């Protein structure tokens, strides 16, 4: 829990930087590289990890797969081992004529070490099913575990709240577009 305290303090200089640059407001967070995707199509989710937890190197990245996202295949990464946790979906999804009722619910890369001063990306391929609602944002909560401390990128803004106030550690999101 002390991490959170330290996080707030360490972020203050970054906030100044943000004000100066303004163009890349999400640089300090774990984010998705591609910000828009069409429902009913494949989506290559690239999680950008710009820094560790308050200076401590990142040793594990866990991504929760939201409901409606299926056929998840993480891309192996040199120096990291990848694990998936499978589980039941809330409903059945049609996948090339097959009914899928369970699949990957969580992906974790671990065993590597990403120092705070470096940047890296973690990639998986996904299928955004038709069940997802277009014109909303789909969030992939991420838990970033470091040698000391944890950063949880799991805040999901309430639907109506919209822009009101962005939290300290928002979950990475992708805006869903309707089928063309």
């Amino acid at each position, binding site marked *: *829990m*002390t991490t*959170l*305290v330290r996080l*707030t303090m360490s972020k203050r200089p970054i906030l100044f930087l943000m004000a100066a640059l303004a163009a890349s407001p999400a640089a300090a967070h774990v984010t998705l590289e591609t910000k828009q995707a069409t429902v009913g199509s494949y989506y290559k989710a690239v999680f950008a990890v710009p820094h560790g937890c308050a200076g401590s190197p990142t040793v594990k990245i*866990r991504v*929760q797969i939201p409901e409606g996202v299926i056929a998840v295949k993480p891309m192996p990464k040199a120096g990291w081992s990848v694990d998936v946790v499978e589980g039941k979906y809330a409903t059945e999804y049609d996948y090339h004529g097959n009914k899928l009722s369970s699949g990957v619910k969580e992906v974790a890369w671990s065993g590597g070490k990403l120092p705070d001063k470096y940047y890296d990306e973690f990639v998986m391929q996904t299928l955004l099913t038709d069940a997802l609602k277009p014109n909303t944002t789909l969030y992939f*909560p991420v*838990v970033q575990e470091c040698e000391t401390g944890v950063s*949880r990128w*799991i*805040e999901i803004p309430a639907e109506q709240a919209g822009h009101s106030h962005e*939290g300290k550690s928002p979950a990475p999101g992708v805006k869903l577009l309707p089928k063309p």
Partner: protein
Amino acid sequence: MRLFAALATLLLVAGFATGASAHAALVSVDPASGSILKTAPKAVELRFNETVTPGAIRLIDGAGRARDDARIEAAGETISVVMPPDLPQGTAVVSYRVISQDGHPVAGSVIFSVGAPTATKPPTSTDAGLSALIWLARIGLYLGLFVGVGGVFFARWIAWSMTGMTVPRMALLIGIPSAIVSLGVLGLDLLGLPPAALVTAAPWKVAFATSAGPALLVAVASMLLAIMALRSAWYARAFAMIAFIGVGLSLAMTGHAATAPPEMLTRPAIFFHGLGVAFWIGALAPLAALVSKPATAALPVVNRFSRMAVLAVGMLALTGLGLAIVQLERPSALIDTRYGAILSIKLGLAVLLLALAALNRFRLTSALARDEKAAPALRRSILLECAIALGIFALVAGWRFTPPPRTIVPETPLAIHIHTDKAMFQVLVSPGKAGANDFVLQLMTGEGTLLGAKEVTLILSLPERGIEPMAQAASLGPDGYWHVRKVELPFAGRWHVRIDALVTDFEQITLEDDLELAP
């Protein structure tokens, strides 16, 4: 032994089924008591620390009239008193009387003023006569259960003779009406009615619906069985045993000790504590009569009893100690609360009783074996034990009027309630003034059950003074609530409170609100 095991299991199941804690305490009131409002509130909302049943709730309006058109809405731990639309200006009083899970009433009043304060007074709710009657009825009940049923059990199972049954018979004849009166006066107390209302059905109905109703029924049944076991019949021994077990059951079914968490431990503890008392105290009167007889008749009985009494006393001490720890929570409560003071005196008397019992067991009993002159001394000692036991009954009956320290909520902390569909957070801040404050965070789900969280963070800021958010980790207390102690809040004013509760690794519930801190 098998019967005991079955009963203990039954008790466990009963403990699980009735759910959480006991003896309700008022947690917050909206509008706050003593507040002066511009316009009349739509409702007065009372929130307790557990689910309560409304007893008597009355509204006296600013004009000093008692109103009967306030609507009561009870939902779990919250009771809303919906105000009539034509509430006049002035000071209004809502007096409430609710029934906690342990079957005891909790009463108080909330005062608020519309426009400007006037001199409306809360009604005086405690009736000294009624309290005395409740107390006496309880002593009578204890006499019936311990001296009466315990005495019959002694005669049928230890002494194998009906010598000295006069006192137990009298105790049973006092105990049965006492149990019935107990139920009636509990109803009066719950509804705030005068004794004359005993002729109506209302107080009986209300009292019977509490946990005390079935418990008193079991007590009456036990005493009736004991009376039947006085007669020499083939069923006498069986009835005496069932009655004896009924004493423990009846005590374990109600009261603030039986409903203290963890109930799966406290209920059996009360059960065995009750059995121990009935075994020991019940034996005293018949023993006193026995030792006046020739020693050849008394000695084997005294010896048999002494052997078993050591076991009973050990069980009494063990269960009593365990219950005291649960109820008191901290040793200082032995002195600085009324409940603790009663317990302290009770412990003193119990030690005295133990000393006498030890004297009887190790000195006088062996003296009795050697020569008969020891009999008067043993008899005197036993009679003294009886007197001390009566004193303990009178003391313990007084617990009915004092909440155990476990349930005492620190006085009027500042409280805010944050509510969404997903969760309700109750935030208690004491003392609620600028300086060091203790925070208690009660996290509930939308349905009102305890919300399990992995981590909870309290974030405070005072934008008007430029105080940036300060985050503090909360720690989970044994009470199931989250605590942050000694939070330095340097200025009075409108603080912004935000609580992050990590429910799973990937899910966090965040609620925020403002909090007016007094200087």
